[in-house]
């Protein structure tokens, strides 16, 4: 080693910036979460774990954890599996793949804010296209398919569709009803996320050497399923790891759709963490509780990242 100090000058700007805009605020948030400080206050008291205690005991915050967990657990697997299926279907197409790629990728490119407003109109209980589509389908094929009348155990008089038709077109108020709001938001989340996953999987699929499929064929892997098991899925391991990680982090961060469509309601069923941070810390100026939620939020993300880094990473790279 020599004594030149030049290297310090090279890395200093990045380190300083990182400390100022990332590390310091993080510790600040951590510190504030143990106080009763609100923005604008001149003084504050240390309150210990009170903020955290609230979070795990007050109903609102328990609901927040539930809503977030539901959203993540529903959106991540479905959008990943759908993304993979769409990518494999597109990969097998000879013509028209580009059109489908564009269509599926549109929700990713479009501003989610604008898309959310479009969804709000689409799902409007009386004016929305969804409910008018359902209402027009009473007694027809739509009722048969969407009412699940084709399933042997569903009574065609008792299905949700039939009941709604019978009760003067009483279809769900998708975003305004406790039992449908979170699922509707999940649906929009999936619709928005899977196009991105599909593109990542498409890239992953094109990087699988064709000779591997041919080797599998020569080895006697006849069905598509066998070839998928032997070649596609293992070779997509690194892609899947990346897709799952990034989708999880993005779903944890869901905010725009909630802000536009439900504002966390009805009765906090869609009260996800990002929205809670925004509502508490910004709208209600309860900085300390907002900071506590942020710390928990970061905790989740960190656990995920470590899990990815040290547990799964070792199994997908050969």
């Amino acid at each position, binding site marked *: 080693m020599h004594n030149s100090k030049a290297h310090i000058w090279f890395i200093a700007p990045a380190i300083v910036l990182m400390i100022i805009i990332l590390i310091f605020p993080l510790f600040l948030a951590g510190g504030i979460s143990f106080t009763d400080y609100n923005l604008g206050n001149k003084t504050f008291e240390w309150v210990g774990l009170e903020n955290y205690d609230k979070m795990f005991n007050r109903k609102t915050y328990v609901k927040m954890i539930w809503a977030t967990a539901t959203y993540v657990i529903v959106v991540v697997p479905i959008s990943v599996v759908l993304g993979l299926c769409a990518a494999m279907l597109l990969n097998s197409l000879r013509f028209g793949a580009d059109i489908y790629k564009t269509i599926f990728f549109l929700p990713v490119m479009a501003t989610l804010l604008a898309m959310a407003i479009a969804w709000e109109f689409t799902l409007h209980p009386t004016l929305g296209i969804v409910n008018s589509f359902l209402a027009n389908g009473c007694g027809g094929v739509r009722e048969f398919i969407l009412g699940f009348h084709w399933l042997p155990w569903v009574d065609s008089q008792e299905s949700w569709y039939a009941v709604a038709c019978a009760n003067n077109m009483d279809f769900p108020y998708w975003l305004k009803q406790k039992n449908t709001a979170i699922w509707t938001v999940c649906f929009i989340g999936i619709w928005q996320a899977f196009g991105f996953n599909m593109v990542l999987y498409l890239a992953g699929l094109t990087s699988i*050497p064709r*000779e*591997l499929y*041919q*080797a599998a*064929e*020569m*080895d*006697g*892997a*006849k069905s598509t399923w*066998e070839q998928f098991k*032997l*070649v596609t899925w*293992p*070779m997509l*391991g690194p892609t899947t790891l990346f897709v799952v990680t990034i989708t999880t982090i993005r779903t944890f961060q869901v905010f725009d759709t909630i802000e536009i469509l439900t504002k966390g309601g009805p009765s906090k069923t869609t009260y996800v963490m990002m929205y809670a941070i925004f509502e508490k810390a910004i709208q209600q100026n309860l900085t300390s509780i907002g900071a506590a939620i942020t710390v928990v939020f970061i905790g989740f993300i960190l656990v995920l990242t470590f899990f990815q880094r040290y547990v799964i990473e070792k199994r997908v790279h*050969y």
Partner: protein
Amino acid sequence: MGTISLKNISKSFGSTQVLNNLNVDINDGEFLTLVGPSGCGKSTLLRIIAGLEQQTSGDVLIDNKNVNRVRASERDLAMVFQSYALYPHLTVRRNLETPLRLRDYNAFERLPLIGNFSPSKKEKTESINQLVNKTSETLKISELLDRKPGQLSGGQRQRVALGRAMVREPVAFLMDEPLSNLDAALRVHMRSELSELHNSLKTTFVYVTHDQAEALTMSSRMAVMIDGNLLQLDTPQEVYDNPSSLSVAQFVGSPKINIFKGTADSSGTISFLNVNLKRKSSESNTDLHIGIRPEHLEITNESNENTFSGTVAYRENLGSDIFFHVNIEDGSNKIIVRGLPQFTHQISNGSSVNIKRVSDKALLFNQAGMRVQFTNA
């Protein structure tokens, strides 16, 4: 049994004709090499035999059964790919097991966990293990069985790829340039190993290569393909000594055969440079190409009507032989002459030399590149 017949095989991709009405009969237990320059369609032909590619027209017969409509996995052939195509996520043992597992276990037995409840699975697993152990001993890869392909060297991967092909005793082995990713020394070594393997297995080998040396050293017969046409199919010695056309003569043999422009007069007497050949051509009054291989030319001190002279442009010393690249005096040709080091070591670049030919070794080709025979007289 392992006979493969190709009848009138043609293949085109769009408007590009890749294979042109090929007929090949491959005998049981034969080591047949498909050799030709890159892009001649040899790999495509191999993939048509394998069933990975569908021919545009013609028939593929394996053991006299038409397999045009039989998919690759059901043709009972094994293939070694140029890139080896090992499954990178599986250990060497699992790689070797894969073809057996896919063929021997039924769908239920392949299921994870519950598949183990099948009563016949244990027995099958036993026999799979035995086969894998036997194969890995033959190929000397037993100590590699628990590694992943990523941890192996090129040569070891090559063996594993061979092992995966060998383990289930197929009707024939198809090999697509299996040695081209190895370094030169290992490639030469693997040539002899492959030949030994072929001798001990006695299974049909169809081997694709662009390297005429591999074809000459290993095969029982070689098929020379150029531009989608099969030009000659014969034993390596016959192809070398008796090429059917100018392209074959130029492709086979290293360094390349020397080609001289010459003429045959009305009596069939052949002359080129200042030399007349003793034998006469069966075609008279025509221009000819006279091919003489480098080892059939000698550097000599004599100077007479049977020698010609030139200047050494480049001296290529291979240790056992020295090849002299010689510019002929009239400037028409650059030829290669083999010299034995003990007689020619003092000749350096720029020296002028006299060159003599070994008699009875010249090959004649007409303007179209087809072989012309000498008259028997």
